[in-house]
């Protein structure tokens, strides 16, 4: 399950903007397949983002968050080159995490 998380980050005047895009089916458990059988639930329940040892975002998600969840948020006190760690766990116990540096130049 490696590399399920894509992170884009930038810093402007000490405020970091983090965009996370995660590849995940996010099945609610309420959908049925073509034969009418319920597709078992599989969705991310917890998502956390850490910066310098502090948890800046601790999210609890339900199955009603879109397939391949996208989350954007901001926090202050960051600078270029800082490391950010993003991790998630789903209801089946699968998990993934990634560590990225905030790039010095904004990506295009």
């Amino acid at each position, binding site marked *: 399950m490696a590399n399920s998380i894509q992170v884009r980050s930038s810093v402007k005047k000490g405020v970091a903007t983090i965009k996370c895009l995660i590849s995940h089916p996010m099945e609610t458990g309420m959908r049925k397949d073509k034969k009418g059988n319920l597709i078992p639930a599989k969705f991310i*329940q917890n998502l956390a983002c850490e910066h310098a040892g502090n948890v800046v*975002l601790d999210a609890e998600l339900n199955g009603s968050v879109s*397939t391949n969840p996208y989350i954007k*948020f*901001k926090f202050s006190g960051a600078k270029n080159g800082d490391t950010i760690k993003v991790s998630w766990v789903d209801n089946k116990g699968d998990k993934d995490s990634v560590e990225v540096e905030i790039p010095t130049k904004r990506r295009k």
Partner: protein
Amino acid sequence: MDHKRRILLKSTLAASATTMAISAGLLTPKAVLAAWNTTAFNAKDVDTALTSAYGSTDTTDSDKIKLKAPDVAENGASVTITVDSTLDKTEAISILVKNNAQPLTASFKLGANTEGFITTNIKMGKSSDVIAVVKANGKLYSTKQQVKVTIGGCGG
């Protein structure tokens, strides 16, 4: 004699590496990821969800929360919602969809340096009010917006 010394050195190094990994938080994901509030997320209505998540349904309408959502969403499978709170000491943001089978869609606990700003994509089964609940300075505030959905994103 020299051989034994090698072994001792190796085992000491391995042990210290493990200790470092634990202290750096690499091996303790449970400490970071808090438990999932099953009652709140499985709740079938907004009030039950709010009571389990925040212990109260007493929310004050506030114009300091901006909820950006489309008036009409063509595809309910992915509706972009932005919540922007300028309230002091915003601690947590929750997004609820009134007419979804399970209204509570996502709860975000914010760190001390995190701004009251979240964008995310959600699923909507049918047209509904989208409610943003913000906990700031120990109080609950909310704002809502109607979103019309052309094609539902839930159910088969």
